[in-house]
């Protein structure tokens, strides 16, 4: 599982260095040098999806509870932020964001209650109820979208303490800051007793119970924390990336997309969530470029979409068969092959 040594263990001191360099690149070089296209169409959606995948990974990868309803919580986060901003304009945006996450968490806990009695497929099917219910409610009740006939919402300008994030680079930096903070907090949760409890419940629920792990609290915490993170990711998706969203954008395919991210990236790995999200965002872009270059005009958007579906499906199956631990396992193996000889040479 997570037995693979991290970068820091392989090269002592390199960890802190890598983090510093990474932060400098992510917060400095990228927004200064990157093109608007890169930040608008690649990096911002990557960050939102990565955070959603972190959330789902907490629930499915760590706590072992399969959910097919992630998109519902993305939608809750997006629409809750919108309504908080609209109806309580005196609240600062960051407070809206946290409250929206809490609302998503509350709904997540409600739909997580069946997990106390249901396992496996039965639970997965019950999370579908969340998916369909939320999508229906957002379309049906005009209140959620301020009476837009088709439930569409337009995101207001992001502003924190008087500073507005409007350009692609600014929205990227905003997303990055939120995702970094949320991921660090998640990491701390997972490394504490709560995180060990998640894995214990996943690996052997009965033994966990006998030891005195509070099953009810642990599972509901997993559902709540997961929905909280996914809700915030939904707000980023709607406000920093798309800026105009409709309930149909949070359909079942979106839920599956997030599930695919954590499977391709690697279950029970936060780094895997980021790798998987990067793959899912970049890969269709590459495919459409390649298609256009090879086949020119023949490659219409319908064909492209179908080919993408096929390739994503094949990749899922291929990963499950060849490397069930996902991209992160490949990454670690590659890293060890590169880093270990270097480390030995240095000593």
């Amino acid at each position, binding site marked *: 599982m997570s037995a693979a040594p991290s970068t820091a263990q392989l090269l002592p001191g390199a960890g802190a260095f890598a983090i510093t360099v990474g932060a400098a690149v992510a917060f400095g070089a990228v927004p200064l040098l990157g093109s608007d296209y890169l930040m608008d169409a690649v990096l911002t959606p990557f960050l939102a999806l990565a955070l959603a995948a972190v959330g789902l990974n907490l629930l499915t990868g760590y706590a072992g509870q399969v959910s097919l309803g992630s998109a519902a919580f993305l939608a809750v986060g997006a629409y809750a932020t919108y309504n908080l901003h609209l109806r309580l304009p005196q609240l600062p945006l960051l407070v809206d964001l946290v409250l929206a996450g809490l609302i998503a968490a509350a709904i997540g806990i409600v739909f997580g209650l*069946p997990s106390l009695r249901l396992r496996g497929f039965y639970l997965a*099917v019950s999370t579908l109820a969340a998916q369909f219910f939320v999508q*229906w409610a957002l379309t049906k009740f005009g209140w959620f979208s301020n009476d837009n006939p088709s439930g569409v919402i337009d995101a207001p300008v992001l502003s924190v303490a008087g500073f507005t994030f409007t350009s692609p680079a600014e929205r990227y930096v905003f997303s990055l800051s939120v995702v970094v903070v949320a991921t660090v907090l998640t990491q701390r949760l997972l490394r504490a007793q709560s995180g060990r409890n998640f894995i214990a419940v996943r690996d052997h629920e009965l033994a966990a119970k006998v030891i005195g792990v509070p099953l009810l609290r642990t599972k509901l915490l997993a559902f709540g924390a997961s929905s909280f993170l996914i809700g915030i990711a939904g707000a980023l998706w709607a406000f920093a990336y798309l800026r105009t969203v409709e309930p149909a954008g949070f359909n079942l395919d979106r839920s599956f997309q997030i599930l695919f991210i954590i499977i391709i990236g690697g279950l029970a790995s936060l780094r895997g969530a980021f790798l998987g999200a990067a793959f899912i965002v970049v890969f269709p872009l590459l495919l459409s470029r390649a298609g256009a270059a090879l086949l020119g005009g023949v490659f219409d958007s*319908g*064909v492209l979409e*179908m080919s993408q579906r096929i390739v994503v499906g*094949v990749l899922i*199956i291929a990963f499950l068969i060849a490397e069930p631990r996902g991209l992160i396992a490949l990454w670690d193996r590659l890293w060890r092959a590169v880093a270990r000889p270097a480390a030995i040479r240095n000593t």
Partner: protein
Amino acid sequence: MFDYQFLIEVLVGGLLSGVMYSLVAIGFVLIYKTSGVLNFAQGAMLLFAALTFVSLVERGSSFPVAFVITLAIMVVLRVSVERAVLRPLVNQPPTTLFVATLGLSYVIEGAAQLLWGTQVHGLDIGISDVPLDIAGVFISRFDLFAAAVAGSLVALFALFFRYTRTGLSFRAVADDPFAALAVGLRLPRVWASVWTASGIVALVAGLLWGARLGVQFSLSLVVLKALPVLVLGGFDSIAGAIIGGLLIGAIEKLSEVYVGRLFGGGIEAWAAYVVALVLLLVRPSGLFGQKLVERV
């Protein structure tokens, strides 16, 4: 005054579409019972079958010929899926298998539409949709026909699995694959017959649903209608699938007509799920699923 005639009309309409849910659900149960896989790709296979059939008919082949060719293609597809996807994943946890079939459904949906196009195909199987008037209750002729076809297919399977040798092997494998293997049953053969059977189910269900809704992408979403049925009836019970299908069909229509109004309609998207969930909380293994004693 409460309109009882209308209630009966709604109820019958619900039960009739329930039969079609049962048919789709049985496709799941057959495979779940023998290989422990919740085959999410069942919907995609249904779409693939209907699209292939319609495209053959549009290219001038007669119904029976198209039916046989499609069936042959479905069986080949099923067997290759078993070989290429499920066999390498044997002994993996059920969730892994489920996600693999999710990936598979993407592949089949993409392939079906890449091959046959994304436009909606009409499928006319020659049944007029003029409602039948039985004692003042109007019933769709088409629904009646579809229910009759689905019902007889279901009955046929029930008889097949009860009285034939293959049926007996099927039940043995479903009960305990290792014991079945030990007494000399050839698992691949049982699997092949089960996959063929579920291929027939997919084809027939695809045609019936296709005739009603038009053959198009959304056909594969029929799978989402079958899931609450499975939850209600238990993933491993054919009887459960039948009764669950009828129940869900009836509940869906009744709740839409009598409860949905209060919320402005459209609740059939989730009403079945909520009903199934509530039931699950009372009976965690469904109405008919086997309750296993956990050995510690």
